[in-house]
């Protein structure tokens, strides 16, 4: 829950008499101050706080206006440092009796917050939004309420920058292929070291574009893993090609390179490893096999942006690498988005054309393509997050490391990290024997979990035509029955890790 502090609560904090008189205000303020998250002030409040405090300082202490302003600047800096600012949105409903209240209420609505106030008028008029400090203290959330991906927290952390960049896009109306698209692509190239980054409409479309660029056609075969999200194999089938599954390595859950060569035929065109949960497959082995058999490699890096193998970015592996900016991904947008990476200028040019209906110039179409562009707004959002991504990635890795330490003595199979690899830890997934029972116990204690993935692709109904049966890929099948993902995001706290660990222990 978000909360917004009204002006009177702020003024109480900086006035000795009011501190004595309104002790619950001070208790609420102190709690908000210590909690230091999801607490906001309306952007419309600062001028009033400044005016009132300057007046008090001048009248009571005899300070000059100049000195009073200097002192009040310290108050404002303190407030901005400790709390977040909520905008006053254009959709506010003006109450002509008290316009300031309208602004504060509108700010609260913009961030889905309750207003903590002593203002009796506001409490009466906006009883569904305004609460007293006493109500706040009695109803504050004390119980563990763990978020799986915690997208809300990330949004509010970068809110000022996100709002600014989104406003720029909305103001210039270049919704498709606006300047933020090119800017993001250049920044992605710098971040990954890949020569070309081409944004597109989703991680799924990134795979499609990659295969279309390599002229994958009906009857071609693409070797991949059955233990992945449907998009990996779905896109192969969508192009009329045949997904050829190879079982996974029991430690990394990625495609087992030692089983690839036996599946290569004259129809094989591509090997498509998936960097599951954020860690690349054994690319040394896969690229050697591809080279030996003259095959192309497309890395499905939907979950692994920012990870590396032998010091090379996951997005710079294979002939083409892809990623997804789906919101829950380590680097996510506010909708669908993705990117294709390649060091080949020729392929990059073709992919750029394919994502705009195969267009070579306006209304001239060289290829059968698709409407596969990532919109400007989503690019602007990802570009803001990319600036903070190294820090976020390090925090994810730290959370994973702490999980592994806390869970090491439990009867679980913990994530295995190849010494040549770093992981983006899109998921922190463990294997547990009695998964259903453990999930139920965690759910009861407010801990969300997920299963990535409960059924390997060779057993999916849509792939029945491929003729696979249960038992064909025993490791994928076994892992799919035991795998369970724990809450993973940059903000999982030490206390939460300890709590989750204790609940798992039972």
């Amino acid at each position: 829950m978000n909360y917004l502090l009204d002006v009177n609560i702020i003024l109480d904090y900086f006035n000795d008499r009011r501190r004595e008189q309104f002790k619950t205000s001070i208790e609420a303020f102190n709690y908000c101050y210590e909690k230091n998250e999801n607490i906001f002030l309306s952007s419309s409040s600062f001028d009033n706080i400044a005016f009132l405090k300057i007046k008090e300082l001048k009248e009571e202490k005899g300070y000059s206006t100049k000195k009073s302003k200097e002192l009040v600047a310290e108050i404002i800096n303190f407030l901005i440092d400790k709390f977040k600012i909520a905008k006053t949105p254009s959709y506010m409903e003006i109450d002509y009796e008290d316009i300031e209240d309208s602004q504060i209420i509108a700010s609260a609505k913009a961030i889905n917050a309750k207003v903590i106030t002593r203002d009796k008028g506001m409490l009466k008029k906006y009883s569904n939004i305004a609460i007293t400090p006493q109500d706040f203290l009695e109803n504050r959330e004390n119980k563990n309420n763990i978020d799986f991906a915690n997208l809300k927290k990330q949004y509010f952390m970068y809110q000022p920058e996100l709002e600014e960049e989104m406003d720029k896009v909305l103001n210039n109306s270049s919704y498709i292929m606006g300047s933020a698209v090119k800017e993001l692509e250049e920044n992605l190239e710098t971040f990954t070291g890949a020569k070309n980054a081409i944004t597109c409409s989703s991680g799924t479309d990134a795979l499609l574009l990659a295969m279309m660029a390599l002229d994958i056609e009906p009857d071609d075969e693409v070797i991949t893993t059955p233990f992945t999200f449907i998009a990996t194999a779905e896109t192969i089938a969508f192009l009329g090609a045949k997904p050829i599954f190879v079982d996974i390595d029991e430690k990394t859950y990625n495609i087992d390179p030692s089983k690839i060569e036996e599946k290569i035929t004259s129809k094989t065109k591509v090997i498509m490893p998936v960097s599951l949960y954020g860690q690349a497959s054994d690319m040394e082995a896969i690229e050697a096999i591809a080279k030996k058999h003259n095959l192309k490699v497309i890395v499905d890096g939907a979950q692994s942006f920012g990870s590396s193998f032998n010091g090379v970015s996951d997005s710079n592996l294979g002939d083409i690498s892809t990623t997804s900016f789906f919101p829950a991904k380590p680097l996510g947008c506010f909708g669908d988005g993705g990117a294709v990476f390649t060091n080949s200028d020729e392929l990059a040019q073709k992919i750029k054309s394919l994502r705009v209906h195969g267009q070579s110039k306006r209304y001239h179409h060289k290829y059968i393509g698709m409407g596969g562009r990532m919109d400007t707004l989503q690019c602007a959002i990802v570009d803001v997050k990319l600036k903070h991504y190294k820090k976020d990635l390090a925090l994810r890795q730290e959370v994973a490391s702490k999980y592994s330490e806390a869970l090491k003595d439990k009867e679980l199979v913990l994530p295995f990290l190849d010494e040549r690899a770093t992981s983006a830890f899109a998921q922190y997934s463990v294997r547990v024997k009695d998964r259903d029972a453990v999930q139920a116990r965690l759910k009861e204690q407010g801990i969300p979990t997920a299963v990535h993935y409960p059924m390997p692709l060779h057993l999916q109904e849509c792939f029945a035509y491929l003729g696979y049966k249960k038992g064909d890929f025993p490791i994928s099948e076994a892992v799919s029955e035991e795998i369970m993902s724990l809450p993973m995001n940059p903000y999982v706290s030490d206390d939460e890790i300890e709590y989750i660990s204790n609940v798992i222990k039972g």
Partner: protein
Amino acid sequence: MQLIIDIPSTSLGDKIIQILNAFKNDGVKIKKQVESQKNDESLLTKEYIKENWRELVMTSGDSSDYYKSDQYYEDRAKDYEERGKI
């Protein structure tokens, strides 16, 4: 021994006076209470404000009724006028 101290706010001053008065029976006397700093802002340097702003901004007047009163709106208008905003 005599001690001269500079107290940045009235509220803090009141508290210190209260403490000192507790030693009245031991012979401690408040000889003189001077509001010398009230209008002398030379001591309020940027550095001093940075370090002591919390104490310096504390007030004790009761302005609860003032906020949103007619007088408040009049004062805001006056403030706007003084700042050349209207």
